């Protein structure tokens, strides 16, 4: 599993604030590799830039700077035509199944249209594939002629997953795929995603604000704060020995599912600073309970640290 499928290098995305000269530093220098067959979790709070990373990776947005390599193909410099030929390999499932499915299309059209564009299949073969997809995601054959509004949120997310799978991708960005669902249905969808990954050897970039869900789904996890990665580690390393104060605060803030069983909490004060005027030095210093003078002036970089021989990256002056 050590082969890289996707390589992100120095990724930057700035958005201009209308009517001003200011810039939103949505993504500000992200380096990250996604291995073949793994689930890489990307977590952070609202506005940290995780969704923007997902869209940049699929080239739904143009990066301000940086490189994106899918299996060695440079997605940023590739001519549009050739990029389109690679599109079938990378798909996305969005958070809101109510707005990501065209309400005027039947399930059949939603699932076969991508095949018509990306795959060379006969009409008969497309129908066979449609049947197969519906079954795979737990829908029935009779559902094909129905419209999205006839389905519940969980079923719509199944349709969105089937649509992503329809072109046989090897990489799927899952952007908060269960955040709009109730927990009992969320469990169905998470199980489905895991099963599909096994059956098809899929690679996932799993974006979420929910640490428990990310932990359940991911092999490795990257934590993002204000446009930058603060820590990248294996699932177990991140949860048993988190190094960055932000990661530790984030984990400790999750309510435990046992009464009065609250973890020792690292309290963060203040609000997330604006991504327009990012703090000097370490971007987390305004909320970090351990910040020193150095943190206020000098920006730390994401670097490899040795913890029990495992790959663990962190961006903090305080970690030796």
């Amino acid at each position, binding site marked *: 599993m050590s082969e890289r499928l996707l390589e992100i290098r120095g990724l930057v995305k700035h958005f201009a604030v209308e009517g001003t000269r200011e810039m939103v530093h949505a993504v500000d220098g992200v380096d990250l590799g996604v291995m073949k067959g793994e689930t890489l979790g990307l977590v952070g*709070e*609202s506005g940290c830039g995780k969704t923007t990373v997902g869209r940049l990776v699929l080239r739904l947005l143009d990066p301000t700077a940086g490189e994106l390599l899918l299996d060695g193909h440079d997605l940023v410099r590739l001519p549009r035509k050739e990029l389109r030929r690679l599109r079938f390999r990378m798909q996305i499932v969005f958070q809101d199944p109510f707005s990501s499915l065209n309400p005027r299309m039947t399930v059949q059209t939603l699932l076969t249209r991508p095949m018509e564009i990306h795959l060379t299949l006969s009409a008969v073969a497309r129908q066979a594939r449609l049947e197969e997809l519906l079954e795979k995601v737990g829908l029935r054959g009779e559902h094909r002629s129905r419209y999205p509004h006839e389905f*519940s949120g*969980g*079923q719509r997310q199944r349709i969105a997953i089937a649509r992503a799978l329809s072109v046989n991708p090897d990489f799927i960005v899952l952007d908060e795929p269960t955040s709009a669902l*109730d*927990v*009992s*249905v*969320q*469990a*169905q969808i*998470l*199980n489905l995603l*895991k099963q599909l990954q096994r059956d098809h050897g899929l690679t996932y970039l799993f974006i979420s*604000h929910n*640490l*428990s*869900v990310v*932990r*359940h789904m991911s092999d490795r996890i990257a934590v993002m704060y204000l446009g930058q990665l603060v820590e990248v580690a294996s699932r177990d390393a991140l*949860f048993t020995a988190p190094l960055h104060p932000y990661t530790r*605060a*984030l*984990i400790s*803030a*999750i*309510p*435990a*599912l*046992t*009464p*009065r*069983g*609250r973890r020792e*909490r690292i*309290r*963060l004060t203040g*609000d*997330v600073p604006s991504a327009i005027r990012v703090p000097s030095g370490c971007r987390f210093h305004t909320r970090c309970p351990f910040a020193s003078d150095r943190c206020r002036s000098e920006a730390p970089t994401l670097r490899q640290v040795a913890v029990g021989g495992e790959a663990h990256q962190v961006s903090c002056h305080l970690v030796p």
Partner: protein
Amino acid sequence: MGALLEVRNLRTHFFSRAGVVRAVDDVSFSLGRGEILGLVGESGCGKSVSSLSIMRLVDRPGRIVAGEILFEERDLLQLAKEEMRRLRGSRLAMIFQEPTSSMNPVFTTGSQIAEAILVHERVSRKAARERVLRLMQLVGIPDPERRFRQFPHQFSGGMLQRMMVAMALACNPSVLIADEPVTALDVTIQAQILDLIKELRDRTGASILLITHDMGVVAETCDRVAVMYLGKIVETAALEPLFEAPRHPYTVGLFASIPRLEETVEWLQPIPGTVPSPLDLPAGCRFRNRCPHALPICAEAEPPTLEVAPGHRVACFLYEAGGRA
């Protein structure tokens, strides 16, 4: 703990063109003095409609069709509109999920809280303003003088939710209804607001009805819990027994489907199927088509509410013959 607020056999139905939705259907619970009661359930279970019913804020096509809501020995449903309006925002206060849509964007936040005081009490503007500044300090807003003059868009979600808490507390309510108060907030900010709500209970002795879909929030905050499914309360218990020994198959299923931080499992155990349409409820127990333990009788009659342990009530046939499952 004597009951301060008691909801008895409440039914709130919505008369839509497609049919009658029995959003709240024979719901009873009580809220003790100084108690934090969690009302939990998934979307569409009726938890929000229950809270709106208490405040008598249910709009057409919805209507409270039966029941009693006793507050300080009076039935809120019998009060004249004017009397109800005097209670609302003073003795009974409410915090909503979306702080940004709960405030008027064209007035300063401080003036909106002051107005809440001026509507209910005969105090001078100056006194109202001073009380608002004190409240802002209480809920942890730095630099209240400056913040008072700011508009809602100048606040972050967490800070604005603090302002909403301050507004709710403006007239010393004895009952505070918080409807998903932290759902729209980031987890580090969530923890701050939940701490604040608990502190307030400790300091003011107010009773709090906390409506949420998040079992973690319940575990952190509540003393007692009522679990709702499709318009009915299926289980009521103190916090520990509910988490340690849930009895209703729905509650059990809910816990099994949540990924936990302290436990690694390969597969989650979802509740099979989906919530039926509220327009087409199954006869008998509403959970039976998703229940792994359903009996023939579950399709025939509504399950009775049984007390399986002191204060622990379950609406399920499985416990009728002395408690199995």
